[in-house]
C-alpha cells in the first residue's frame, strides 16, 4: 500500500516540479483532442440523422390522373396486402392541392391560372421496419412502378444516399485527423515526460543502484502520462460541450434552421468515458515511447 502511495506521490511530484510543461501538455492535448472531437460530434449527429431519415422514409406512389375509383381501391388493397407495407395513406387530388396551399401560401396563385387541379392523387406508403434498408426500398419501388395505374414512385433515397456519402467522407477525415492529432498528443506528452526524465535522471540512477526494478521506476512516469492524457481529454470534453451549447443557441436564434437544435445531441456519457480512456491511452503511449527512448539508463 505504501508502495502504491509512493508511486502516485512521485507522479504528482513530477507534475508539480514541471508545472509549466504539465499545463502546456494538458492544454495542447485538450486542443488536439477537441479537433478530433469536432469531427466525431459531426459524424455522430450525421449518422443519427441518416438513421432517422432511413427510419422515417416515406414512399409516394403517384397515380395516373384518369384512374377510376374502383381501380384506386383495387390498388390500395394490393398495397395493403403486401407484407412489406406497414401503412398506406391515400391523398386525393383535392387533399394534395389543399396541402400545397397550406405549405406554400405565397405560391398558390400559380395553380389558379391552370384552371384544373394539376396535382395527382397518391398513396403515401410506409414500409415495415425490416424493409427500410436502401436496397429493400429500391427493390420495392422498382416493383411498384410496373403496376398499372401507377404514374410515378418517389422517395427521398437520393438525399439519404448523398448524406451517407458525406458521412463516409467525414468518417475518413475523422480517422485521418484523429490519427495525425493523436500522434501529436502522444509526442507532446512524450516530450513532457522526457523533460521530467532528464530532470530526475540522477534520482533514477540512485533508485536503480538500490535495487528498484525498471517498472518501479517507470510507473510514476506512466501515471504522469495517464493523468496528463485524462486531464487533456476531460478538458477537451468541456471545450466541446461549451462549443456545442453555443452552437445550439446560435442555431435556435436563427429562424431558418430552427428545430435542428433539438435534434442534435452531445456525446452520451459512455462515449465521454471512452474519450477519457482514449486520452489516458494516449498519455500512456506518450510516456511509454519516452521511457523506451530515453528512460533506460545504463546502470
Amino acid at each position, binding site marked *: 500500500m*505504501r508502495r502504491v502511495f509512493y508511486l502516485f506521490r512521485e507522479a504528482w511530484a513530477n507534475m508539480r516540479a514541471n508545472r509549466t510543461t504539465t499545463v502546456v501538455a494538458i492544454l495542447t492535448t485538450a486542443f488536439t483532442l477537441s479537433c478530433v472531437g469536432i469531427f466525431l460530434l459531426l459524424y455522430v449527429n450525421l449518422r443519427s440523422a441518416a438513421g432517422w431519415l432511413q427510419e422515417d422514409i416515406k414512399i409516394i406512389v403517384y397515380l395516373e390522373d384518369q384512374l377510376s375509383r374502383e381501380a384506386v381501391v383495387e390498388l390500395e388493397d394490393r398495397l395493403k396486402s403486401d407484407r412489406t407495407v406497414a401503412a398506406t395513406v391515400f391523398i386525393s387530388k383535392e387533399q394534395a392541392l389543399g396541402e400545397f396551399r397550406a405549405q406554400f401560401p405565397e405560391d398558390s396563385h400559380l395553380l389558379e391560372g391552370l384552371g384544373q387541379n394539376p396535382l395527382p392523387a397518391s398513396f403515401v406508403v410506409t414500409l415495415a421496419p425490416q424493409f427500410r434498408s436502401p436496397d429493400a426500398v429500391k427493390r420495392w419501388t422498382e416493383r411498384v412502378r410496373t403496376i398499372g395505374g401507377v404514374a410515378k414512385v418517389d422517395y427521398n433515397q437520393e438525399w439519404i444516399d448523398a448524406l451517407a456519402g458525406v458521412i463516409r467522407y467525414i468518417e475518413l477525415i475523422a480517422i485521418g485527423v484523429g490519427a495525425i492529432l493523436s500522434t501529436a498528443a502522444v509526442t507532446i506528452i512524450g516530450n513532457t515526460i522526457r523533460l521530467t526524465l532528464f530532470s530526475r535522471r540522477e534520482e533514477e540512477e*540512485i533508485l*536503480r*543502484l538500490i*535495487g528498484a526494478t525498471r517498472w518501479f521506476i517507470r510507473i510514476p512516469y506512466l501515471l504522469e502520462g495517464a493523468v496528463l492524457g485524462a486531464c487533456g481529454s476531460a478538458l477537451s470534453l468541456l471545450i466541446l460541450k461549451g462549443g456545442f451549447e453555443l452552437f445550439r443557441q446560435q442555431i435556435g436564434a436563427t429562424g431558418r434552421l430552427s428545430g435542428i437544435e433539438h435534434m442534435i445531441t452531445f456525446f452520451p456519457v459512455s462515449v465521454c468515458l471512452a474519450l477519457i480512456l482514449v486520452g489516458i491511452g494516449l498519455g500512456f503511449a506518450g510516456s511509454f515511447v519516452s521511457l523506451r527512448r530515453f528512460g533506460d539508463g545504463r546502470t
Partner: protein
Amino acid sequence: MDAMIQLIHVSKTYDRRPALSDLTLEIEKGEFVLLMGPSGAGKSTLLRMLIAAETPDEGQIFVQGKNVTKLKRSEIPFLRRKVGTVFQDFRLLPKKSVFENVALPLLVQGASSVDIRRKVTEALRAVGVDHKKDQLPTGLSAGEQQRVCIARAIVNGPIVLLADEPTGNLDPERTAEIIELFKLINARGTTVVVATHDPQVMAQINRRAIVLQEGGRVRPSAHAMQVAG
C-alpha cells in the same frame, strides 16, 4: 571459509585504456577488505561490476556463488537488494527526508509500513542520526549525510556492503567515526569492501588490503597483504 565474492580473470577497457587487467581475487564471507590504489586503478569499476552496473569485457564475477556477469536484466535489482552501496558523494535524494531516503530500499522491495518504520528507525539509530529523521539531507553535515547513506545501505540487511571512497569528503574526525561504523557492521556478519586511496584509512581499518595498480592489475604479493595498524 566460503567465498562471498570471486573475480576470475576479469578485464575491462575504456577507450582502449585498461581499467582492470586479468584480475583474479576472492573475498571470504564475513571478511572486511580494503581495496587500495591510486585514482584510475579501477577500484570504482570493480565495485560497480559487483552490482552489475558495469560488465567486464572478459572474465567471471561471482557474488554468493551467483555469476553476476550472466544475470538477466530483470535479475539485477535482486542482486542489488543484497548488496548495500555507500558512495563518496552520498547520493541522497535532496527532496526526501532522511527517513524517506533510508526507507527507499525497503520501499522498492514492497516492505510493509510497519516493517519500514521499524527497520529504518533501527538503521538510523545504528548510525546515530535517528534524531535527524525528519530533516532534508541538504540540512545535514557531510558526516551526517554519509551516515544516512550508510543507513540506507544497511537497512535491508545486505550480505555485502560496498563503499566507494566513503570518507573522501570527510574530515579526519568524521572519517574515524565512519570507519568505526563499518567495523561494527562487519562485526555483525556483513562482508565489507571499502575502496580508498587514503593510506590513513588503510591504517585505521587494519584489515586485508587488495592493492590495485594503475591499469587495474593487482600489485604482486599484495593480494593477501595484511596491513599493520
